[in-house]
């Protein structure tokens, strides 16, 4: 039984929510942002990361990690996949404490970055546990609070460092010891996920595989169905211009306020942190909005909401670059952050419906698209002195609006798209999701999970459920 309506979500969902939160929190403790103690000492990383080849390597690594994570989720289940990735990257965090050169520092940051692929498993997991009616909310809360952890880390780590320094360690050793805190959290979270987590309401993948209730799928099939689904590519592009933009702003905004408005570094840092802290409510808000729109208008509502919110984010981005005074700039930045983060939440209200068989890889592609968008944007607009930062921000806003237009191309035959209603041939949810399985596989009965899901996804028709055609192959509904 999936957690169905919002009531069930909040009552029965609480145990799931609890570890959803710990998931979210741990996965973003992994974005370690060391406050430069002696900015000189730690600026080597900027030196090295400036080199083109390292940027490319970092992005490719990030995209690969997310797609690989998606695949692992499809094959082994999100519980094992997250726990495994978290434990494998924990050594990188422990070793940050013993890094002592530009190269070693770069390496640990690179490998620590892989752990962020747990974002994909978190979204996959939420999509598996929660029903279509609340999947946007679940994904939004998990993703938003996770990103929030990244912002919170910027405030917490300096405090941890200060505490250790006051206890008696020298500055040079205190920062090293400080890294043990997130590293230990990481190890403990992996334990929590493994022992407390459950892949599906029915049980874990390995048990279900052995008992025959779930069949182990084939990698080539999942991969093929993921890359041939054009909607996955479109969402990857648009996610690059909401989450990618969020990552870009995280990187440049403190410097922007410091340089343009002459605030001191500490204040600039606080302003930058407030951008990330909006994730507390804005990304979940996007997810909740997605579900509310779906209740009334179905999938078409989700698509329209995403397009409107992300375009508005682009408009406020253009404004942000144009505004000349500090107070108004901070206000515009906050409004911009709300829209951009809500767009991220809205994107993951749609991703669970693109494919059922290849949900993991589609989630991974979308997540990877976010990273590619971030690097692309930074390379085009914020590298070197071709554009001033404010011009770069404005142009980034224009690019957001342009790249968001492709949402108009998304069309689900069973539900419609932004401008067209569902197909006149009467395509049903079953037809759409069953098209990912061939008849031999259907014969073996391994498509049953997709069947269950397509029943559940009828809610995406919006208010006109009553007039929908019934399934053509007469398979009885299998609600447990």
């Amino acid at each position, binding site marked *: 039984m999936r957690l169905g309506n919002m009531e069930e979500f909040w009552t029965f969902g609480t145990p799931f929510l609890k570890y959803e939160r710990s998931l979210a929190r741990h996965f973003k403790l992994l974005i370690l942002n060391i406050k430069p103690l*002696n*900015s*000189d*000492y730690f*600026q080597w990383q900027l*030196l090295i990361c*400036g080199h083109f080849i390292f940027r490319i390597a970092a992005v490719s690594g990030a995209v690969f990690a997310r797609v690989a994570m998606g695949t692992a989720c499809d094959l082994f289940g999100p519980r*094992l996949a997250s*726990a*495994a990735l978290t*434990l*494998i990257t*924990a*050594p990188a965090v*422990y*070793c940050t*404490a*013993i890094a*002592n050169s530009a190269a070693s520092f770069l390496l640990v940051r690179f490998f620590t970055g892989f752990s962020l692929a747990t974002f994909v498993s978190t979204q996959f997991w939420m999509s598996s546990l929660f029903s279509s009616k609340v999947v946007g909310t679940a994904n939004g809360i998990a993703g938003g609070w996770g990103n929030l952890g990244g912002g919170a880390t910027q405030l917490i780590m300096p405090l941890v460092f200060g505490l250790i320094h006051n206890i008696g360690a*020298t*500055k*040079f*050793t205190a*920062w*090293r*010891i400080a890294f*043990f805190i997130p*590293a*230990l959290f990481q*190890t403990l979270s*992996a*334990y929590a996920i*493994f022992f407390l987590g459950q892949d599906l309401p029915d049980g*874990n993948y*390995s*048990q279900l*595989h*052995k*008992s025959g209730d779930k069949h182990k799928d084939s990698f080539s099939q999942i991969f093929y169905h993921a890359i041939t689904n054009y909607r996955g590519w479109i969402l990857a592009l648009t996610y690059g211009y909401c989450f990618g933009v969020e990552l870009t702003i995280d990187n440049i905004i403190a410097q922007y306020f410091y340089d343009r408005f002459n605030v001191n570094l500490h204040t600039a840092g606080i302003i930058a942190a407030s951008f990330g802290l909006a994730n507390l409510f804005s990304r979940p808000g996007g997810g909740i909005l997605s579900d509310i729109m779906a209740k009334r208008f179905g999938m078409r509502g989700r698509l329209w909401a995403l397009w409107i919110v992300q375009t508005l984010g682009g408009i406020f981005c253009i404004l942000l670059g144009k505004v000349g005074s500090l107070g108004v700039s901070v206000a515009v930045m906050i409004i911009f952050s709300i829209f951009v983060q809500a767009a991220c939440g809205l994107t993951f209200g749609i991703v669970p419906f693109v494919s059922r068989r290849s949900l993991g890889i589609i989630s991974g592609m979308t997540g990877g698209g976010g990273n590619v968008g971030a690097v692309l944007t930074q390379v085009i607009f914020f590298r070197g002195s071709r554009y001033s930062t404010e011009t770069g921000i404005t142009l980034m806003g224009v690019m957001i609006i342009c790249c968001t237009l492709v949402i108009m191309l998304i069309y689900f035959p069973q539900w419609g798209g932004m401008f067209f209603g569902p197909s006149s041939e009467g395509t049903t949810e079953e037809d759409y999701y069953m098209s990912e399985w061939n008849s031999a596989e259907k014969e073996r009965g391994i498509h049953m999970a997709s069947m269950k899901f397509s029943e559940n996804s009828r809610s995406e028709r919006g208010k006109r459920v009553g007039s929908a055609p019934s399934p053509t192959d007469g398979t009885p509904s299998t609600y447990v």
Partner: protein
Amino acid sequence: MAALEGFLVASFLLSCLTSTSYGVSFSSLQKTIVVSASHQQGKVLKAGEDKITVAWSYNNSFPAGTDSAYKTVKLKLCYAPISQQDRAWRKTEDNLEKDKTCLHNIASRPYSHSNNNISWTVERDVPTATYFIRVYAYNSADEEVAYGQNTDAHKTTNLFQVEAVSGRHASLDIASVCFSAFSVVSLIGFFSLEKRKAKSSQQK
């Protein structure tokens, strides 16, 4: 009301002043001070441990009276060009207010014509880089009026290197390795536990 007006005018003037103040330009300074620096232990100095001796005096080949305005001198540790490459936060600018070449202060002394020297222990928070030493002479308004450095105009001779404090301890190294190994072993444990659980549920 009048007080408010006065306050506004005063703050306006003040902001004008602060925004238009422009530092002394380095190219306007004369190199009238001769500086030499020496240290033992070969070329690489350890921050927090090794000492460096700096001696400075007025260069008498300049006309007499040039140094009448000098009141204090400040000795600074400055980055050599090789340590400034690709690091915008150490950039050399002609406007001394914006110049970031010499970020570390060694000492400050009242000006004296000759026989000045100082033995300085390299401070602990000095980062790993290549350095030279520069001495600025200030007038009574605390503006730079002259300088001297222990290297040539291109900053290529008499440079020395400092190695920063690393903060690493053997105990930290061991702890890191142990915890990392523990994480990996846990993972292997998880996988075997999972296999066993699956097998037992199959047998049920």
